[in-house]
């Protein structure tokens, strides 16, 4: 068949070409000739657009005390082709710049573009900017552009707040909102709430003449969009308590985490050593960052969220609760302790000297190792085989919010470690291990790891008698209370009735003269706690203390870790009780104890070598 009989259809194609070209031409005619608003006036006005940066949201503590505000800063901008005959030496002197870096920076700007403006010097101080402004007329091609940068009003909360810097390349690539040189929260709340804090950029179109002066808005602002300021945040942090804790922790390494058990609100989140958050603001940021990074005490490392420690004797509380729940012990159960627990000649767990045959309350108060080895053994032996028993035990432990990320609103975190059955299967072989093999887990050693915030949350569970709210850092966004899954109670697998005997024991830790933290007693306060010591293969042991108060209707749960300070009772316990007293009463009755702690320097550098 001859399909060329359709040759007439070529007319359609001619028609297609002409009609669509006509449409293009009509539209172009409208755009280029009829619509005057696009045209340039005789002075060669140019329509330009300017990004309007929104104000970054403020950050307050729970008492509405400002932690992070904004300050005015200036970027020194340059348009290389407009640089006239300037006195380079004078220029360098005014802005404190070496000649070689001046040449380097100019070259960098030229490489970017010689007719587009680019940042010559970012975030110079107000003082320098003012000085430069005086001589501005001598330096054609340069001008100042106002912008805001962070000002942290309290020298505190460095890890919580984090810092703001230039947006990293990988973010620019994946998120259309950001442009090169935009600000971006890098760590801390600045990062986790970046989207709320940053607001939304606006854009303004206006005419500009050859002298770069604004000559009125374009199309009456039809295409402009307003900048939307960032949202303000109220943190759950109590800045008074936070600063007090930072004071106590000065010259020590470690962490304090305090939580309000009835809400999961984080009252303090301290990692020591810390640094002045303003060091990471402005022109000297990278220089300061490098200094902090190189510091051998690692001030940038957020110990409260990222360090993982074996919980030591504090973990005995969990074993006691699981023992009660599984019905293998009761508050009256007594176990012998002959300087420790002995399985056979080669397998012993030692204990300190104390009166033998303690009941549960006494065993907690005096932290008897033997008691909890027996308890753990009974829990596992209750079941047909070790695997079932261990997994049952492990499920109970996980229900305290351990061994997993907390999935909260903090920027970073660590899951810690509650070893799985397969972990031990790999280590010892399948069915080649029994409870005695891993007996030190009953006193919080072996492969157990908890981060300080998990430790504090675990304390919260005990304080609440069986549940917790996910610990979180933001209380209100733009004065509106948060409303999310953090407000839903998460229950652990232990019944409420089993907590009281354990809590009685915790009370005796401090109040009984045999208690391991009797030294940290605060007159007139009912504090329930537990000391612990985390073995540290690299040096002196870490001192641990957890506590909550008041006994009934707890207002605060706290976990303290002081690295390389030895026994839990010596350092961590007094810090814990002082924190509680400060928070609940607002004052300190035992200033001798306070001074003793405050002035102590415990930075053991031995393991760095």
């Amino acid at each position, binding site marked *: 068949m001859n399909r060329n009989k359709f040759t007439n259809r070529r007319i*359609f*194609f001619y028609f297609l070409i002409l009609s*669509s070209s006509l449409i293009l*031409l009509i539209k172009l005619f409208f755009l280029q000739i009829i619509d005057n608003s*696009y045209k340039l006036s005789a002075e060669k006005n*140019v*329509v330009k657009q300017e990004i309007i940066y929104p104000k970054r949201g403020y950050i307050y503590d729970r008492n509405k005390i400002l932690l992070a505000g904004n300050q005015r800063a200036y970027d020194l901008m340059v348009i290389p082709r407009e640089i006239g005959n300037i006195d380079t030496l004078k220029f360098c002197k005014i802005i404190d710049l070496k000649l070689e870096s001046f040449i380097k920076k100019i070259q960098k700007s030229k490489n970017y573009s010689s007719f587009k403006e680019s940042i010559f010097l970012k975030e110079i101080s107000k003082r320098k900017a003012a000085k430069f402004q005086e001589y501005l007329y001598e330096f054609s091609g340069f001008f100042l552009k106002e912008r805001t940068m962070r000002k942290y009003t309290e020298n505190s909360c460095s890890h919580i707040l984090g810092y703001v810097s230039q947006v990293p390349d990988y973010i620019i690539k994946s998120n259309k909102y950001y442009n090169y040189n935009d600000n971006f929260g890098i760590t801390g709340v600045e990062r986790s709430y970046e989207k709320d804090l940053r607001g939304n950029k606006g854009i303004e179109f206006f005419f500009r003449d050859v002298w770069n002066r604004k000559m009125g808005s374009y199309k009456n602002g039809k*295409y402009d*969009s307003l900048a939307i300021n960032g949202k303000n945040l109220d943190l759950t942090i109590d800045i008074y308590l936070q600063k007090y804790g930072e004071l106590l922790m000065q010259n020590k390494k470690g962490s304090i985490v305090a939580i309000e058990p009835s809400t999961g609100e984080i009252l303090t989140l301290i990692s020591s050593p810390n640094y002045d958050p303003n060091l990471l603001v402005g022109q000297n940021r990278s220089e300061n960052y490098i200094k902090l990074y190189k510091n051998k005490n690692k001030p940038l490392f957020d110990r409260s969220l990222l360090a993982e420690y074996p919980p030591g004797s504090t973990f005995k509380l969990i074993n006691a609760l699981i023992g009660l729940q599984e019905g293998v012990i009761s508050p009256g159960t007594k176990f012998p302790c002959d300087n420790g627990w002995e399985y056979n000649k080669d397998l012993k767990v030692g204990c300190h000297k104390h009166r033998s045959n303690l009941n549960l309350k006494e065993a907690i108060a005096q932290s008897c190792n033997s008691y909890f080895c027996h308890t753990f053994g009974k829990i596992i032996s209750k079941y047909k085989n070790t695997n079932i028993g261990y997994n049952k035990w492990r499920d109970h432990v996980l229900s305290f919010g351990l061994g997993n990320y907390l999935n909260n609103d903090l920027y970073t975190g660590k899951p810690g470690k509650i070893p799985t059955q397969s972990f031990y299967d790999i280590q010892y072989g399948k069915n080649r291990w029994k409870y005695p093999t891993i007996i030190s887990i009953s006193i919080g050693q072996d492969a157990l790891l908890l981060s300080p915030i998990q430790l504090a949350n675990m304390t919260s569970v005990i304080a609440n008698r069986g549940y917790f709210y996910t610990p979180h850092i933001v209380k209100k966004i733009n004065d509106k209370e948060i409303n999310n899954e953090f407000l839903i109670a998460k229950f652990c697998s232990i019944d409420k009735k089993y907590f009281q005997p354990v809590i009685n024991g915790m009370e005796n830790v401090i109040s009984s003269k045999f208690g391991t933290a009797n030294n940290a007693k605060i007159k007139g306060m009912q504090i329930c706690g537990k000391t612990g010591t985390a073995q540290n293969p690299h040096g002196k042991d870490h001192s641990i203390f957890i506590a909550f108060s008041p006994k009934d209707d707890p207002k605060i749960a706290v976990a303290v870790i002081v690295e390389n300070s030895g026994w839990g009772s010596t350092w961590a316990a007094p810090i814990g009780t002082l924190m509680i007293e400060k928070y609940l009463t607002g004052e300190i009755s035992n200033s001798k104890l306070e001074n003793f702690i405050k002035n102590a320097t415990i930075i053991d550098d031995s393991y760095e070598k």
Partner: protein
Amino acid sequence: MRSNKVLFRNIDTQILLIYIIMILYGLLNIFAANYDNDIMILFNFKSEPFKQSIWILSSFSLIFFILLLDGKIFASLSYFIYFLSILSLIIVLFIGKEIGGARSWFNISTMLSIQPSEFAKIGTLLALSKYLSQININISKLSVQIFSLTIIFIPILLILLQPDAGSSIIFFSFLLILFREGISKYYLILAGIAFSLLIFSLKSSTKFLIISLIIILIFLLIYMINKKKLKSNLKLLLTVSIILFSYIKTINFIYNDVLKPHQKNRIDLIMGKVVDIHGIGYNLNQSKIAIGSGGLFGKGFLKGTQTKFNFVPEQSTDFIFCTIGEEWGFIGSFFTILIFILFLIKIITMAERQRSTFSRIYGYGIFCIFFSHYFINIGMSIGIVPTIGIPLPFFSYGGSSFWSFSILLFIFIKLDSYRMDILR
């Protein structure tokens, strides 16, 4: 040995001339879009004008090679080339480099990336031409229609997986080939009109749309009066007009009175009606400012400002028409469109003079590709087509597309050189 005389025998010089004007004018504008008050840019081997010159020069050897080949080879290799291009479209999904969210490039080296969808255009077109030019093919048979659609839709699906909606749209234009080859005209007319009107009425103001329609109808009327066919067609013309206007009104009604605000917003954003300052809306607005500021005569060569200040990064690729509009004004826009009109009409004329069905279908195929690039690219720059990132043939910066356009065109020029030969 063949002599050059034989090699270039029967090569159409008019199309060559148009081609040369296009690449020179295009290069000039790429130079202008990059111009930085510094003539040295021409000699900077990393600059776009320099790289584009290299692409153009290297394409000459490719063109020479194509002209050296025996024209029969394209028909005989067409299924094989189709197969290869489909294969490369599959492979790129796995090992391709991601640019702008789509996995559509092979990264050969830092200087050289290749986009397989460009070459799939050639493969698909060759396969379609080969299939439809077989003697025993009857396009009014449903099975033939389905097979042709399969050839077209396999690459479309693969490209949508990247996902690169822009490139896949070009393949839809191949449907026009089926129309020319005799598929019932109602298929195409209906689909085409319904689709474009839908887009147009959502996109532009109704006023503008109706004015355009009236102008087109007037032209139709004049044409009919000239051909003295008015009487027989007047009824049809009237019916069509009424249907058209009521269709537009219906879309308007649904848009204004049926859709909820958030649904409307979504459509507006896709259509570029809402200014989304960081996304497509912003580019479009910038593009319109640049073109609009050109006025009648433009700001003059290298005098453009909009295309140099803070403009979108695609100013020498997808938005090259902005530089033309700004620096050469309406005169320059008109000239560019005129070149394309001549170019496209020339291709149709050439296609129609082929004795070989294969060559004719191929000719219509490249018409479809060039036409859709031309209309969508310029249309998007001035805001009457949604923002779809595809290049303007021979004008936009980019080696992969330039090569592919050149290959497409010169295969046709080679095929055309056999037009005097006996029917093959």
